[in-house]
């Protein structure tokens, strides 16, 4: 996260030394110089927070943290698991650390890779971990576990910081610098840590110069064997070119190009038949074009260039969307909008009403059920959305409704503004055939035979109240609003009102 932490810390310590250098001036200067050189020159170089590659369990975050803070990784692992289980905070931390901390042999972290468009398996799993953690955390927000999580996190952080600080104080003491008085007591006077034996860098015994007197200092009087330069060359190569960039091995990455072409194909394929075909067909054609482009790209990459898991991921996403689009009912069109049908008389009621998607309202309040036209028969078809059928209070409704996914509701307005749900039926593939009688105190004046075929959405049957009220309110409440006509004298003025209201 902050690669210069150690150096910055040294800077602070030297400042402290300067501040307190009045007492022992010469020694302080010497210490400072020693310190600075020790900070720059080889030794253990500036320690960087990286994810460990070799000892690792999942992403190497804990091992990297342990290496950075000089602690056993278990000290991070156990609280992390506890935090994950208790409140999900551990997973949040782990996911983001996985994304943000670069692996030890790479220069950029996974988030950078993600932003530059190369999604790989590790990146995806990091995101997944973070997402799951966020979900758990949000789900447990109401719990009382959050303070506990914070306490554990704080304790671990404190331990790590203390360990870090103590190591630095020990290192400073080893060099000879005066120790910060606040940390002086924290430094235990333990024997120096056992260290691995130094790696023999000199040639082995049989490569020693034959003349031991030292006059022929570097005459490389080997009996045989290669020069030392070979080893130097290899080490330099390791140091300089050790970082292998992704995608260097198997040709140029094709993922970006393929996904761009696929997006273009999707747009073109969708737009091509947007007006003439239903929604599901347009989307299916567009997404299938994108999938075909992906397929061609993958086939090409079998010979030339390379694609990574990011492309496979996008292929899966595209295919899932394609499957979803192909399951959209064909009756849902692309002509979306809000429609209100207001037949004025019984003869004005059409045989069928059709709405692709949107909010539709069939307003039958002005239809007079008198004389020979006791029965009005109509059919309504809805693709996606809401269909509201408004009937007068004194009419029997013979309903034959089929709903793919959705709900059939029957309202009766008890009061203006507030409506009462009399009956509600919801679910998948529902078929309802009922007869709705008018309320008790009214005699049926006529019958509306209504058959409705709705794919996805809501069908509302709203029965108007019988009481005459001043206009101003509308039937269902939230729907497209219009003026309420006076109910009793039917077939008079109100239609014009409604047209204006729209």
């Amino acid at each position, binding site marked *: 996260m902050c690669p210069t932490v150690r150096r910055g810390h040294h800077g602070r310590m030297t400042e402290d030394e300067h501040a307190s250098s009045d007492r022992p001036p010469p020694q302080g200067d010497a210490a400072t110089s020693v310190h600075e050189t020790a900070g720059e020159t080889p030794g253990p170089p500036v320690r960087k927070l990286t994810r460990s590659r070799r000892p690792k369990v999942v992403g190497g975050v804990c091992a990297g943290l342990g290496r950075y803070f000089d602690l056993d990784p278990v000290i991070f692992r156990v609280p992390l698991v506890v935090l994950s289980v208790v409140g999900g905070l551990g997973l949040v931390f782990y996911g983001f650390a996985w994304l943000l901390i670069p692996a030890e042999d790479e220069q950029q972290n996974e988030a950078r890779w993600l932003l530059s468009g190369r999604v790989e398996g590790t990146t995806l799993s990091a995101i997944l971990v973070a997402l799951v953690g966020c979900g758990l955390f949000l789900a447990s927000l109401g719990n009382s576990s959050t303070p506990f999580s914070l306490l554990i996190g704080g304790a671990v952080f404190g331990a790590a910081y203390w360990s870090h600080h103590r190591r630095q104080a020990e290192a400073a003491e080893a060099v000879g610098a005066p120790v910060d008085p606040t940390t002086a007591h924290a430094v235990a006077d333990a024997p120096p840590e056992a260290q691995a034996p130094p790696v023999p860098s000199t040639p082995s015994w049989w490569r020693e110069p034959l003349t031991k007197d030292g006059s022929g200092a570097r005459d490389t009087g080997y009996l045989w064997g290669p020069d030392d330069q070979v080893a130097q060359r290899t080490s330099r190569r390791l140091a300089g070119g050790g970082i292998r960039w992704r995608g260097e091995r198997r*040709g140029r990455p094709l993922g970006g190009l393929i996904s761009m072409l696929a997006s273009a194909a999707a747009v073109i394929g969708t737009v091509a038949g947007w007006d003439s075909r239903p929604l599901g067909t347009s989307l299916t054609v567009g997404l*299938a*074009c994108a*999938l075909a482009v992906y397929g061609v790209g993958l086939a090409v990459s079998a010979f*030339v260039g390379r694609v990574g898991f990011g492309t496979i991921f996008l*292929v899966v996403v595209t295919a899932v969307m*394609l499957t979803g689009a192909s399951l959209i009912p064909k009756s849902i069109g692309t002509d979306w909008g809000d429609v209100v049908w207001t037949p004025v008389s019984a003869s004005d009621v059409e045989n069928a009403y059709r709405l692709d998607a949107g909010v539709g309202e069939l307003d039958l309040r002005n239809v007079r059920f008198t004389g020979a036209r006791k029965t009005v028969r109509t059919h309504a078809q809805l693709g996606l959305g809401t269909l509201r059928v408004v009937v007068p209070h004194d009419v029997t409704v013979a309903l034959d409704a089929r709903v793919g996914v959705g709900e059939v509701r029957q309202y009766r307005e008890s009061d203006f503004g507030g409506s009462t749900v009399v009956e509600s039926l919801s679910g998948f593939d529902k078929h309802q055939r009922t007869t709705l009688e008018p309320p008790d105190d009214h005699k049926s004046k006529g019958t509306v035979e209504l058959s409705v075929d709705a794919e996805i959405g809501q069908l509302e049957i709203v029965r108007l109240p019988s009481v005459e009220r001043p206009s101003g309110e509308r039937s269902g409440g939230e729907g497209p609003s219009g003026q309420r006509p006076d109910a009793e004298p039917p077939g008079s003025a109100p239609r014009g009102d409604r047209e204006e209201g729209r």
Partner: protein
Amino acid sequence: MNRHRFEPARLLLGLLLVGGALMYVLDALGEWRVPVWAQLAALPVALVLAAFTAWTTFAVRRRLRRRVAAPPALGGMPMDDLREGYGRGEGGPSGRSGGNG
């Protein structure tokens, strides 16, 4: 762009995807009735087949490689370094430079 080693799994996956896309388009346009279970199973089957092909390719290639590298004709002794000469230590892998054991 340079050609690389042929990867049969990607070719297979690509062809299957093109075929699947064709199937979806024909179904959407009403030319060809495809049952819903086939539409749902198309992509998982393609992915599994591709994964199986990739695994098979990997196994076969590893086996071939091992068979080629199998007979270690008296290696590892300093004598062999001597016999082959140290000149190849320059260009060869660095591990060979230390025949010193």
